[in-house]
């Protein structure tokens, strides 16, 4: 028996595989047994009702998806009343993804969600900070530290901070989250992108810009995990383009303690089950008794990824 259980920033998971925020909902329950998952991560919610962005909200690209869903949300009260109880009947821990336009807003939500039934908070800090001219929190170490500290004071729950790849220095941002008190970081959210319809000349997304996800971005997010792993003391949850168990192994080797599967679930709804079973099979085949032994096991001795020569 391969040991698949992992501990991620204070949360014990039966296995290291969970959905990425915004790519999971109760509908999946019709396709497989949700109790197989390492954790549940909800679509990001906000304090108040939000409608989300205009349609079209998605378009596809080479091995990738662009989305500008935005954060349609029925608000915190509805979530606590209806959604938290829904997940209570399953065994995996419920991690709630939250977003807010201000530091205090984040803290207030975390405080309100520190209730039975909620096992952890994932702070989606890729959203614009209205107190800072709309700049996303996760683009700057200073803002990231601020919001993480406030969240840390607001909740005793395991606190994961989800980073954006749309920054010049993800390592600095990740370190700011660590210093601010995060129990883990999620690396990462979608990459800002766009497409244009060559028939109509209109942007393919109602919001013009959207986030790219899926296999196309895997090598980029993987690189960020690797860079962060070299400098962080807290666990990293890898996210971006994972479709197979091999992809998950790449992330673990790069230094992730767990992984999130997003867009692939839209194409292969049972993908997470495939990753879980495939991880166990991989370890068995390779004689690895504990999946934790893969974490950071990349054979890169003699290399320093931070100073490697520019690509081309």
């Amino acid at each position, binding site marked *: 028996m391969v040991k698949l259980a992992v501990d991620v920033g204070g949360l014990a998971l039966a296995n290291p595989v969970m959905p990425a925020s915004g790519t999971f909902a109760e509908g999946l329950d019709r*396709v497989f047994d949700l109790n197989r998952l390492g954790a549940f991560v909800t679509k990001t919610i906000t304090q108040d009702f939000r*409608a989300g962005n205009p349609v079209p*909200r998605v378009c596809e690209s080479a091995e990738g998806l662009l989305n500008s869903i935005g954060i349609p949300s029925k608000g915190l009260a509805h979530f606590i009343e209806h959604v938290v109880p829904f997940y209570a009947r399953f065994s995996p821990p419920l991690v709630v993804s939250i977003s807010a336009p201000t530091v205090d807003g984040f803290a207030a939500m975390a405080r309100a969600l520190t209730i039975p039934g909620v096992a952890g908070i994932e702070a989606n800090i890729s959203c614009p900070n209205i107190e800072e001219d709309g700049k996303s929190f996760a683009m700057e170490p200073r803002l990231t530290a601020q919001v993480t500290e406030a969240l840390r004071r607001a909740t005793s729950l395991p606190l994961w901070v989800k980073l954006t790849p749309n920054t010049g220095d993800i390592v600095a941002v990740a370190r700011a989250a660590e210093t601010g008190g995060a129990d883990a970081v999620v690396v990462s959210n979608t990459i800002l992108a766009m497409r244009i319809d060559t028939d109509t000349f209109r942007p393919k997304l109602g919001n013009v810009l959207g986030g790219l996800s899926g296999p196309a971005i895997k090598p980029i997010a993987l690189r960020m995990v690797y860079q962060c792993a070299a400098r962080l003391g807290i666990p990293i949850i890898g996210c971006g383009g994972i479709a197979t168990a091999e992809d998950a192994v790449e992330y673990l080797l790069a230094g992730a303690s767990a992984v999130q599967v997003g867009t692939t679930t839209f194409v292969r709804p049972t993908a997470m089950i495939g990753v879980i079973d495939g991880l166990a099979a991989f370890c068995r085949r390779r004689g690895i008794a504990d999946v934790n032994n893969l974490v950071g096991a990349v054979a890169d001795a003699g290399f320093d990824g931070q100073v490697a020569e520019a690509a081309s």
Partner: protein
Amino acid sequence: MLEAHATRPAGAANAPAVSDCPTEVVSHVAVNAEYRHLVLRAGAPATLAEPGQFFHLLCPANGEDKPYLRRPMSTYRADPATGTVEFLYKVTGLGTRALTALASGDELNILGPLGVGFRLDPAWRTIVVLGRGVGLATLAPLAEAAHALGIAVTAILSARRADLVMSAERFAAIGAQVVPVLDSDGSSEPARVAALLDGLAEAGRADAVFTCGSNRLFRLAKDVAARRGIAGQVALEQQMACGLGMCFCCVRKFEVDGRLVDRRVCWDGPVFDLKEATSW
């Protein structure tokens, strides 16, 4: 205002499970210059799909056409007895172009059945279905289900030309009264179709009206149904990614108690009450 939970009709909870299943192509023929008819061998729960439910097709790469997402298609027929599921589709872009390469014996992965289909009230004696283009694919199984419940059907089939009226024989086979309306002779004009529908309602031959495939037909059906106080349902389309209510990309606006709310076509529909659906 957006509704995320518990907007599905209660009955939907008993709908068959969803499966992500490999199927085999039994046949695949061009119906006319634009449409193709695809017959797949599949097992349950796919073959248990109800009228109005849809599947999400994993179109295989075909040369330079490499669709990444699945493509939604209405159930044109699903029959547990023959173990087949059928689709009628129009070649539109990347995904459907890639589909055309499928030949008998090839494999195709389909996810479904998905969504909430049509609801038939056994108390109804006679209904009208009003479709155009690929909307007929969606309405044909509904007409058969109505017939099975002893409900008579009038099928108003709209098309550009007489030779593009599809599935007329399927409606005729269950004894439906088939009324083709055409662009070529002007009979498909909204005013004339509305008059037709009004006449049927007047004659007590429209306990409910069902529509799919045309915004114009939807508007006039909604209008007549409202005026006449008759029930109605519409099967809507919207671009989809997940098909399972997870991504919120497929929302449309609905009028509920005077407010506009967003609902997910894949999860709360694709079939909606005519009163609540809005024009697109």
